């Protein structure tokens, strides 16, 4: 008798769960690259909110205003999201490059190069952008007494004229935007080295006031790490530089590729 009673009670309690969530799980994939429009090279970035951000908005969902679905680019400038609901989307990217969606001081859109597309199966995208700066290693880093010395060349990815043509209409323009404010040699013990993953015992930050970096553009800059990295360690280094201009309210760095350095 009791068993029957328990069965009935549990039936009543459990009946609330009877309606199963039969919405198909997200299975579509959005992947792609962010490349330099001029050279076709991927735009290297930090991994995290100060790097290249992919923002998707599902337009086919009409029950409420579309929400921002954000994820971040990998450090090689590629992105992939394998859990996307099938539907119609708007996708934009923001990073250390000329914004692809530009609005003026009234909030009116000047240029919108974001992509609106159906995502189903594996959908690939390529964003052609103009990075503010380009960084390249020169030679191979050397190690002496637990300090890594590396040489990097910083050049502009976009000419000052082109920058001004595109940014000035957004209002409140200043020539200071183009100034390179700092060059960093990030050090970390993991390959994902960058602004969100750096060891402040070894990383070197060089600040450049005003437009004092102008003379160093295209010239090799030699940077040595701080402190002493214990011997036997493996570290990853990466150089980064940024200009005095914020995209989506964040001043983001441009990067070169991470290098592995073994400290003898």
């Amino acid at each position, binding site marked *: 008798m009791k068993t029957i009673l328990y069965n009935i009670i549990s039936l009543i309690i459990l009946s609330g769960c009877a309606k199963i969530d039969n919405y198909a799980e997200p299975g579509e994939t959005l992947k792609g690259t962010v490349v330099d429009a001029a050279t076709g090279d991927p735009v290297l970035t930090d991994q995290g909110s100060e790097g290249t951000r992919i923002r998707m908005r599902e337009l086919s969902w009409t029950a409420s205003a579309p929400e921002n679905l954000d994820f971040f680019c990998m450090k090689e400038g590629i992105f992939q999201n394998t859990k996307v609901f099938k539907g119609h989307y708007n996708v934009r990217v923001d990073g250390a490059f000329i914004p692809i969606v530009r609005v003026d*001081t009234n909030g009116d859109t000047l240029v919108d190069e974001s992509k609106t597309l159906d995502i189903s199966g594996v959908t690939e995208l390529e964003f052609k952008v103009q990075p503010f700066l380009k960084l390249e290693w020169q030679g191979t880093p050397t190690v002496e007494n637990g300090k890594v010395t590396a040489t990097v060349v910083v050049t502009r990815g976009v000419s000052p004229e082109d920058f001004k043509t595109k940014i000035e209409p957004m209002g409140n323009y200043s020539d200071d935007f183009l100034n390179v404010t700092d060059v960093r040699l990030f050090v970390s013990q993991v390959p994902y080295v960058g602004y969100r993953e750096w060891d402040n015992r070894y990383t070197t930050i060089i600040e450049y006031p005003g437009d004092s970096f102008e003379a160093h553009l295209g010239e090799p800059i030699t940077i040595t790490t701080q402190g002493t990295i214990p011997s036997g360690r493996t570290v990853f280094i990466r150089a980064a530089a940024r200009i005095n201009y*914020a995209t989506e309210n964040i001043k983001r760095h441009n990067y070169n590729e991470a290098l592995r350095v073994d400290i003898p």
Partner: protein
Amino acid sequence: MKSKYYFLYIILGLCFANISCKKYLDVPPVNIVNEGDLFSNSKGMQLYLSRMYSQMPFEDFKYSPARQFFDDWLVTPGTNEGSSLGRDAGEAMTSEGWARNGAYWVRAFNLLRDANNLLEKLPSYKANFSDEEYNHYIGEAYFTRAMVFYALAKRYGGIPLVTSLLQYPEKDAAQLEVPRATEEETWDQVLADYDMAIANLNEASPVKGYANKYVALGFKSEAMLFAGSVAKYNRITGFGQKTGVRVIGFDPATATAASKKYFSEAYKAANTIIKSGKYSLYKKKWSAGDKEAQYQNMVDMFFDASSPENIYTKDYKWPDLAHGYDSYNIPRQLMGGNGYSAGNCPTLDFVELFDGIAKNPDGTIKVLDNNGKYLLFDKPTDIFADAEPRLRANVIFAGDVFKGAVMDVRRGIYTGSVAGGIAPLRVVNGATNYTIGGPQTYNQTDAYTATGAFAGHKSLFLSQNGTTHEVVTLPDGTKMNGGGLNGPFGTSDLTAAFTGFMVRKWLDPNLPQELVLEGRSEQSFILMRYAEILLNAAEAASELALAGAASPDGDDLQQVMYDAITNIRERAGADPLTGMSELAGEQGLQVIRRERRKELGFENKILWDIRRWRTQHSDMLNGFTQSDGAYYRGLYPFYSSVADKWFFDAGFEEARKRFRITEQEYYFMIPGDEVTKSPVIDQQPGR
């Protein structure tokens, strides 16, 4: 038989039908107090206002940047502004993620509705009150609304300006959606509401705890200083995705004019209070040239209910409304029954702001002699013997007295030789390193691990926590624990003075130790005091002068600044200004800001100041900015057993509390569900 029942049913049915139509039964329930009762006399109004005041966004002993409003757990004011650090607090405020009572965005609208309700309904009950009473109540409603809008604006920027009573449930919720206004419109509304409050409120509070004209003027000056600073210094702006409204930041075309307007309003409000002569700096025990009296005066002022400096206080009374400030912040040596202590350890960076300390050319405290060896002191208090009395009223130093007990603060005992002086302790494998890459705690140093120059003779003895001590036998045969009763104990136990200092401000010097409990303290929190008014006037005057604006009330701006800073410094026992020129220009503004940090630390003001100045992310702090992640420093007292002297080691504090904020975090995120469920509420642009 059957027809008889039908008949009965019909009769019964008719009865019910009749009853439901009778209007005379539609009366308000007699067991519920309704608006007519509340708005009938001042006693009823007291109930209505009590409910409003209980929801006021006051940043008092029930507020912390981590947990926000209405939560008295772990209240350690100062720990997010850089004045101090605590075991449970010590990072930049970047969100409301820890707020157990939810984001203020959600809470604000309850109180806003009460204020709007009062504004809309009270006019029909005007006959029940004298003109003076009626105006005061209307003023209270505007004051409340201004406080709510101000609290929202400094957190979120542009907000939904709900200035009328939303008819809910009469209207459909969808019709009542109010989108966010621009940040400029929001600050204009704050200004308008404070002005209405000032125009209507009585000269004096009719009941203790109520607002009055000067309370509203005080908060107006603070709010307008915030608005003016944001208009001037903010670099973050953008448009809402749904509405296209500039919900944060100012339009570059109007920012400069707006900033001047707000600074001018801040100046006028503050100067009105100054000229009223109703308030003055607390100097009851003050005596010229007497540092002890000046120190005692600044301790007493926080506990004297009759202080002429208090413009507005939040009062507490056990058991109805109490808080736990003493419990969380008491020195460990005097810990109360709940086991909390030292939640508020001032940083060396804060201490170095003050006068009367020997300093190096770069402004850091002088702890080494010219040969790079530690300066030796007979008593630990000697290093602060000539310190500005205000510092001592803020901070408990090693060896100072609190509640009749000598505060035992000692990081360790150095037993090494003192011949030729003691070299700095932060040495690992022979390499001295005071950078962030150096040893994090003294447990890693050569003197402790007996390596390098100390090979074979361990010379540093520490305590790992309050119960595990390394004991040193002193030359006179007595035994001494490595660490003091208040620590510091390195990173293993942070309920000690882990920066080398403990807070004194607000700690009740007369509370018996058995009452140092959570929810047992009842000292008032001073929400607005005259010193802030002077600082507001000085800062607004300085900003106006920098902007090339004329004095809004004809007074000489330089003179207003000079008088304000001179009076504050004199009361504090600080070095006087060398002359009026010290306050001129951009440099003068920095002098005024520095004075503010010294005067108003631990009062829930400074964090908002560094946010409105937009310097929190960019100020260089010990080699790093907070946008890269920055650290504060501590001052660690050591006892040399051989010399029977004390020395101090200054450097990064051992817990390495990391402060990090990105520029966009000057604006809090709008709670995600509020954005999702509304067709008009915008998230912060770019986030």
